[in-house]
């Protein structure tokens, strides 16, 4: 039983409400991320994946509603103290030209390794800005563009948090990614200092038989709002905010550390109880055998003793949207960095979620998860950042040009 067979748009909406808003580890199938119909092959057959190119120009930036590439790097920078409005404009002049060249395989004009740039591998570079940059440009800062409130579960470290400028780089080749990151960081070095870089990956063989799974083994980041259709308003900023942001979005990036040493002690039944879903399929534990991750969860189902089948502290239940707007587009990446001394792993999830208004859409969900979520036993938010994602650069435009209108 899948969402498609159980009902029309109304039922699908209910499903998206139930699972789409989940916090770090919400589940089920990535849908129509590239605007293709649900059920279409998740991986378009490029003539040559090495040289596949995603569009740079358009109403929206890439790297948001399109299918997530396998590798990602999130780089946050701070403006140097002497960067004024004119310098911010010069920053976007350089970024626009270099990003367009990198995404099309032409290589930046200063690039002495153009052979690396020629392997575009579906590269997208998505530019976001923090409140300080917007202020220096002299534009209106949206009310939600600020650090998230401190949640009781947080153990936030500065080295993974905040920033004036964000570059989200995604590609199917880690070599492409490393080259693009290096070229862009050096290109804007006179104007910015590097604050942090977080690198992540997804399942390289992601597809119908191999869903994105996080490093706890859970199917992750799949049931989504229908951002190509009726839920577009949940993703893209509209007329309710500053004019420079229309067609843009917001990125919430949370670095969520997994304590795999203790997770290893937990049996599979207890793991499924903590999440409220089956580990093999990602289907809700209330769904009949054979159900997929997109099956609708029955939050009211009780067992013979009168307890909820989906535990009162299960992640699925706690992340469940209490209102239609408590949903957002998740585009998560795993990380698995070098272990620190005395540990065997430093693993977790780069929870990346795009939405029109984080305070309205994300904070209520995160508050519920902070109040109660069995997964909190094994996960800890250690980094947090919010950026305004610029609208796309239309023909003849610079990225961020409307900041200067």
């Amino acid at each position, binding site marked *: 039983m899948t969402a498609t067979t159980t009902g029309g748009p109304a039922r699908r909406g209910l499903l998206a409400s139930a699972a789409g808003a989940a916090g770090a580890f919400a589940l089920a199938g990535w849908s129509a991320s590239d605007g293709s119909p649900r059920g279409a092959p998740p991986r378009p057959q490029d003539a040559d994946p090495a040289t596949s190119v995603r569009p740079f120009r358009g109403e929206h930036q890439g790297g948001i509603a399109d299918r997530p590439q396998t590798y990602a790097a999130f780089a946050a920078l701070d403006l140097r103290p002497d960067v004024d409005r004119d*310098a911010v*404009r*010069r*920053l*976007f*002049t*350089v970024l*626009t*030209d270099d990003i*367009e*060249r990198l995404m*099309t395989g*032409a*290589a930046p*004009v*200063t690039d*002495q390794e*153009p052979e690396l740039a*020629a392997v575009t591998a579906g590269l997208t570079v998505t530019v976001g800005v923090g409140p300080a940059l917007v202020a220096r440009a002299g534009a209106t800062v949206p009310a939600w563009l600020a650090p998230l409130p401190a949640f009781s579960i947080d153990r936030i470290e500065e080295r993974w948090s905040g920033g004036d400028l964000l570059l989200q780089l995604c590609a199917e080749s880690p070599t492409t990614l490393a080259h693009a990151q290096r070229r862009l960081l*050096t*290109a*804007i*070095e*006179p*104007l910015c200092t590097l604050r942090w870089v977080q690198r992540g990956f997804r399942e390289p063989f992601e597809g119908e038989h191999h869903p994105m799974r996080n490093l706890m083994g859970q199917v992750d980041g799949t049931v989504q709002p229908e951002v190509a259709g009726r839920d577009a308003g949940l993703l893209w900023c509209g007329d309710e905010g500053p004019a420079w942001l229309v067609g843009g979005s917001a990125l919430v990036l949370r670095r969520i550390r997994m304590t795999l040493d203790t997770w290893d002690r937990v049996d599979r039944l207890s793991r499924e109880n903590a999440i409220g879903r089956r580990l093999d399929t990602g289907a809700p534990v209330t769904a009949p055998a054979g159900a997929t991750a997109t099956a609708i969860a029955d939050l009211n189902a009780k067992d013979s003793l009168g307890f909820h089948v989906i535990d009162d502290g299960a992640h699925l239940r706690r992340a469940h949207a209490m209102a239609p707007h408590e949903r957002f587009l998740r585009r998560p990446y795993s990380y698995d960095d070098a272990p620190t001394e005395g540990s065997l792993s430093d693993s977790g999830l780069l929870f990346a979620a795009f939405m029109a208004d984080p305070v309205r859409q994300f904070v209520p969900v995160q508050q519920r998860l902070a109040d109660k979520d069995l997964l909190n036993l094994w996960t800890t938010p250690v980094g947090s950042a919010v950026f305004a994602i610029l609208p796309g650069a*239309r*023909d*003849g*435009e*610079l990225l961020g*040009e*409307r900041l*200067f*209108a």
Partner: protein
Amino acid sequence: MHARTVLAGACAGLLTLTLAACGGSGSSTSDATSTPAASTASASASAPALTLVDGWAKSTDSMPAGSMSMTGVFGTLTNATDKDIQVTGGMSPAGSMVETHETVKNASGTMQMQKDLDGFTVPAGGTFVLAPGANHLMVMGLTQELKVGSEVTLTLDTDSGPVEVTASVRAFPGAQESYVPTPSPSQ
């Protein structure tokens, strides 16, 4: 490699035009009527005889204090005419003059830059590549900072008259080779 360069050049030429178009007046333009096709049309309609495609100059932002006396300009000089064009130097509002420079091997076998007294010959219907470590233009006697992301204008002296070109100012850690003053032939 050759094909890639040509492609990159064609692409970049359009970029330069569109950037110049939106940066020129300083005002925010409405894009309701702007299309890629229109950009392409204007590019071919007004194509000058000699252009600098992918033109860029090394910014002074990252130069050590006190060393900010000159900077290199790079790109691909492109000759759209059916006769060779000779570039012998030029002027720039950013400095005292523009020189053509070449890379030569000195007596000890190391590569050094020096003024190319003959200038550059851009072949008819062809290109002449300006690159770090090879032939390039130098803006001498800089009179102002060249900030990353800005533009610098050069008026090149050619045997078919002055040609104005622009270069995007970029951060670049290279092009720090030593330069050899060349004795003037008249001295």
